[in-house]
């Protein structure tokens, strides 16, 4: 029981970690980023190359990959998203545009990865060492994912709900048209939110690459898992993303343990669908 609880939280930590970035990008920058998972995979590959070809430890690699991904995301936003945001007459139009655009971006990233690395499975071993948590052996790298996601999540929640800067970000998320009247530079806020979201995707990628087998084409899986978590948590709600991520991790683990591993995903989706029916705006979403 305790063992499953811990395993579930550890698994959920990964989901939460991956989803928070998307929550920022979608909630604040209002970009429905279908290439989010491919950003994660790109970071996985970067970590793998740094590790296997240059012998750089993935933890150290974070110091290279995070700034790089921030800059790249910023560039992507400036270059591709900003024109769309500028021209969008309403939110619906921006949503459609961003879906189409990031769908294209997804293919570009995936295509580049395929050309450079081929389609094969990549996996390596780092921090795959057992750590005992209350008697349960969990792998170090997965534990790292949980710890990171809780730490980042806590930091984000504090920033968003306790600082003016966070309030500004939320204001942009909630009322982009009105925000300038408050003296808020909406472009800047959206840009930063998008870039931070991208950086968090990269963080997720670095950590995930340590334990998960990936290929150039597995990004979609992450995008979809992240979207599910974001939506279940409630659009734009960071605490929601964390709770939803952990919840799904627990559901998966308990179903695998007590019912049938064959039903893990089915039950994740069932829980997701049922909760949405009860709370049509997600766990933490506002009606």
């Amino acid at each position, binding site marked *: 029981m305790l063992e499953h609880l811990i395993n579930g939280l550890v698994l959920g930590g990964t989901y939460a970690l991956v989803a928070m970035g998307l929550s920022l990008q979608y909630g604040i920058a209002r970009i429905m980023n279908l290439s989010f998972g491919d950003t994660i995979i790109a970071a996985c590959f970067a970590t793998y190359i740094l590790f296997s070809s240059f012998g750089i430890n993935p933890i150290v690699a974070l110091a290279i990959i995070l700034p790089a991904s921030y800059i790249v995301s910023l560039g992507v936003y400036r270059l591709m998203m900003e024109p769309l945001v500028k021209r969008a007459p309403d939110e619906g139009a921006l949503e459609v545009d961003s879906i189409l655009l990031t769908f294209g971006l997804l293919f570009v990233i995936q295509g580049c990865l395929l050309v450079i690395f081929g389609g094969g499975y990549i996996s390596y071993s780092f921090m795959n060492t057992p750590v005992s948590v209350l008697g349960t052996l969990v792998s170090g790298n997965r534990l790292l994912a949980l710890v990171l996601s809780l730490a980042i999540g806590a930091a984000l929640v504090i920033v968003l709900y306790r600082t003016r800067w966070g*309030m500004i970000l939320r*204001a942009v998320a909630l*009322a982009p048209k*009105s925000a*300038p*009247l408050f003296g808020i530079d909406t472009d800047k806020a959206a840009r930063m939110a998008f870039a931070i979201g991208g950086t968090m995707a990269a963080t997720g990628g670095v950590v995930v690459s340590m334990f998960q087998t990936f290929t150039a084409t597995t990004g979609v899986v992450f995008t979809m898992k992240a979207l599910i978590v974001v939506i279940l948590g409630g659009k734009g709600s960071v605490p929601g993303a964390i709770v939803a991520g952990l919840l799904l991790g627990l559901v998966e683990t308990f179903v695998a343990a007590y019912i049938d591993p064959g039903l893990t995903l089915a039950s994740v989706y069932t829980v997701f669908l049922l909760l949405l029916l009860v709370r049509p705006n997600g766990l933490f979403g506002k009606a």
Partner: protein
Amino acid sequence: MLELNNMLVRYGKHLAVDGVNISVEKGEVVVVLGANGAGKSSILKAIAGMVPVADGTISLDHTPITGMPAHQLTNRGIALVPEGRGIIGRMTVEENLRLGATPARARDYEDDTIAQVYDIFPRLHERKRQFVHTMSGGEQQMVAIGRAMMSKPDFLLLDEPSLGLAPIIVGDMFKALARVRKTGVGLLIVEQNVKISLRHADRGYLLEAGRITGSGTSDELMNDAAVRHAFLGGDI
């Protein structure tokens, strides 16, 4: 002083504001009167940087501010309370107000100003934890004005502030605006409620189809036959 010089606003081919000259001094209340669609809102939006100015200039204390983005204008001391209020429905009253103090010029006074706003609109104080979108129309209008005051503006632009307010609140609000004005803020008000707005204004402009067709002090306008006919609706 806030000064519009031959300002033009266009929506596509449609010319909504056709070369207007308007000026407002600090501590002055100026009202713009005009029929629906005359271009009143467009003027305010253009000053606040919410729509582009097609031609002409806007200057603030003789420095040109034409074409500045809205958030910078707020920091220069221009605050707009737009039609539709421009507040954040899914935040609480207090958050909206505090967020109103985002411009650097307003930060230091945040607590004082908020006390002042609560003093003027006690209802907001009662409801400070309520989400704005669940409030009644009139309550939301109060939040909007309060939020604008939070940015410590030199010039406050109000687009039909009395719209949908109960008479008692309209009265209170204009009294409150009079207090705001006493703090040295210049007010540019667009109103349909001609009687009460002229009563509180120093000067006014008449706008017809995007052009200024008349101007004068409140008393002059109040007694002007054309104004009485068009805006004071004869006998009502």
